[in-house]
């Protein structure tokens, strides 16, 4: 029986192996390649997406666990041509070097800011996504910048 889910606000259906990780459904079947493969064991965070608005590691999230749920990937974060404040902050702080891990970093940061609208350094330090280029200091700045903007919007 096909697995039905909502992907970036659209209903989709998947009839393949229910044990296939969400990552490979996204990349090979939904052709959404913004979500990246880094380790395959849920450790590095390059594949971070949102499942019902909570960050998960798509490489260890089987398709049968997402049935009936809502998945948002990096491609679904912006509203039309308007970037999410976290995406904009990533540009403003010039975070990316190779850029490969950054989709996962952004998805993890959006999740953090939902939980901690004014994150402390310790809160930011709970992010475990790996960056081989060493962009962490700029990621911290981008998160603070995005937090300020999001809090300003709420105020």
């Amino acid at each position, binding site marked *: 029986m096909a697995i039905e889910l909502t992907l970036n606000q659209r209903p989709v259906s998947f009839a393949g192996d229910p044990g296939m990780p969400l990552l490979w459904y996204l990349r090979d079947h939904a052709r959404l390649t913004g979500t990246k*493969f880094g380790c395959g*064991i849920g450790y590095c965070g390059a594949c971070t997406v949102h499942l019902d608005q909570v960050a998960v590691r798509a490489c260890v999230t089987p398709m049968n666990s997402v049935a009936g749920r809502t998945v948002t990937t990096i491609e679904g974060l912006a509203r039309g041509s308007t970037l999410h404040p976290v995406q904009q902050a990533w540009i403003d702080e010039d975070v990316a070097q190779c850029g490969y891990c950054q989709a996962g970093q952004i998805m993890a940061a959006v999740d953090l800011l939902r939980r901690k609208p004014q994150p402390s350094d310790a809160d930011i330090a709970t992010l475990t996504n790996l960056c081989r280029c060493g962009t962490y200091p700029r990621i911290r700045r981008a998160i603070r910048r995005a937090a300020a903007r999001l809090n300003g919007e709420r105020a």
Partner: protein
Amino acid sequence: MSAGGRAIPLSRREFIAVSMSAAGGLMVSLCPARWAGAAAGTADTPGAAEAGRLGAFVRIEPDGRIVIGARGCEIGQGVRTSLPMLIAEELDVPWSAVTVEQLPYGLVASGEAPGFKSLYGPQGAGGSTSIPDGWGELRQAGARARWLLIQAAAESWREPAARLSTHAAQVVHADGRTLSYAQLAQRAAGLTPPAGDVPLKERGAYRIIGQPTRVADARDIVIGSAGFGLDGSVPGMLTALIARCPYFDGSVAELDDTQARRVPGVRQVFPIPGPRAGAPIERNLAAGVAVVAEDFWSARRGREALRITWKPAAGAADSSASLEARALAALARPGTIAREDGDVAAARRGAARVVQATYTEPLLAHATMEPPHALLDLTGTRALLIASLQSPGGASRMISDMTGLARPDIEIRLPRVGGGFGRRLQNDFVAEAVLVAQQARAPVKVVWTREDDLRNDFYRPFGVHRLSATLDAQGRVTGWEHRVAATARKYRAAGMEDEPEWIGCVDRDGFPAGCVANYRAEFLPVELDLARGWWRAPLPTFVAFPVEAFLDEVAHAAGQDPLALRLGLLGAPRELSYRDHGGPEFHTGRLAQVLRRAAREIGYGRKLPPRHGIGLAGHFTHGGYAAHAIEVAVTEQGGLSVVRCVCAADVGEIVNPLGLDAQFMGGTIDGLSTALNLQITVKEGRIEQSNFPDYPLLRMAAAPEVEVHLIESQLPPSGAGEMGIPTVAPALVNAIFAATGRRLRRLPIGDQISA
């Protein structure tokens, strides 16, 4: 080191080919004269057609859009931004009006030997050479395009070109009239390009060079559409995973693929050959079994279902422990002398004091965040490669050698690359794609898992360094000896037969060579069966740790301040010969300056809290100069924290300060990550590490802020991708010594402080 990074012997006689783009705009490309037609896409070879679509550095559309081609492999070093900046500067256009387009690998057919030519010049990424290579020729490309636009305006106005200038994508007449580049593009495209070089801007007129400039395609990155090599696809593409023999030079003894073939989606299973035992590794690294399937997941399930008995080779019982024992034993024997000045033995006989220490460095893997992969579509007469590369020229040669296709018939796209660090100077994964695609008779994307990556790398050599210095009665350094027992970089390396035995392991001309009268650098090869490669700032990273830490030891033994000792040895500012990559000269004053700057910025010499310490290190890397000053705090229990981390760098003229800051920040964190925790070890002939949990890159929680200070300079720029890493490990262990009195001589640091 740029081995493999430079693909094509290029004539430096280049000129600008001008032609109309399909949209009627101006295309200007820097290319050999005979490629004027090909660059326009008028030649009938497919390679030229591809070049016609994207193949120019400058294209001005009628709507005023200024499109600049980026020629390099963007691996995170920022060349997709910095190289077009050079062109835009001399074209004299506002950066905000520029659209950057990635160019493909630009090799097209030629009527002359060897039958092909480069359209764009050097496109590889290695040895921090992109900016120095592009500094002259890409600025010329921009300046020549500007020259044509001025000529076009001169014709249009029937005025001498001498009365015209440019400003912000307009040609401006002395009387105030203007014509936009967009208005002039069509006419300019029909003009004869200048015969030789045209004058470049005075430095004071720069509007783009020197300005902080963000990553050109940052928006694509943050919306997930940047398109990395692994994201490539073509119609009908299959995905292959390869089960590789875990033993170097080993092979498949028995294969039962019954279960694998039953996995839904698996199309084919077949063995692929590895390198011949003992022969140079010219293609793929290991024998194995390819599982070709409809998608990654079925290929992976198919691979897991294989039943393979591997046949180990000679090194099956070897280990890192026995390698280290062999290295220590080797140090008892005389080695190959890489450099000898004066008489080290006489200095030793006359010494008031001899300082000696042994430093050990592990094998390292590259662990690019994007694992190796290659998508290859072979159609019989053509090939298309989409992969993350550092050496597209090497990939082109590999495919040509293995398929017999002429190189211009091999199309190579240059997507964004998820990290390089030297791993992709090798094209073993491209060789695998050829082997698999040939047999599968379909376009195939070979994908590596992280486990495949850590266990099948071209590893940074392992080495044991024995350093000794002799001091006279006044504490002056009279002799310096650096003996390196290491896994030779050139072991089984293809194309390095003519290199000296010690290449990549001994820095014969590195500081303090030339600054100490009696000096000797010596190499002792020790073997272990695995492949070696270039790893970010390969030689500087390998030698700066022992040399710069030992300098600290010598300073303490001599009763001198470590900074004062270094500055004293560097002496008067002067050029010394440096024969290896980054030469031909090394300037002692530039190294002294970055050391002094780092020391000043961190407040070197100030009183520190208990169990805090500051360590310094400086190094000359690939033509650039960098120093780190690191302050650490170490708890009684051995808990280490980095309190401050300062990096000073002199890379000549600053092209993009924001990009440079990123490179030195990132290099610093890479250096900390590596020094603290990373190593590859071998046990019973197999790599022990498998994935990030046992190759633990630094995470956010442990990443300090990095204060980067760039030296203002008018000297031609070096690159910047590698200079930020070599001095981190020695500055860190020097700081730990200053804080605790404990001298760490082995990397990674791991739990040595608490032990």
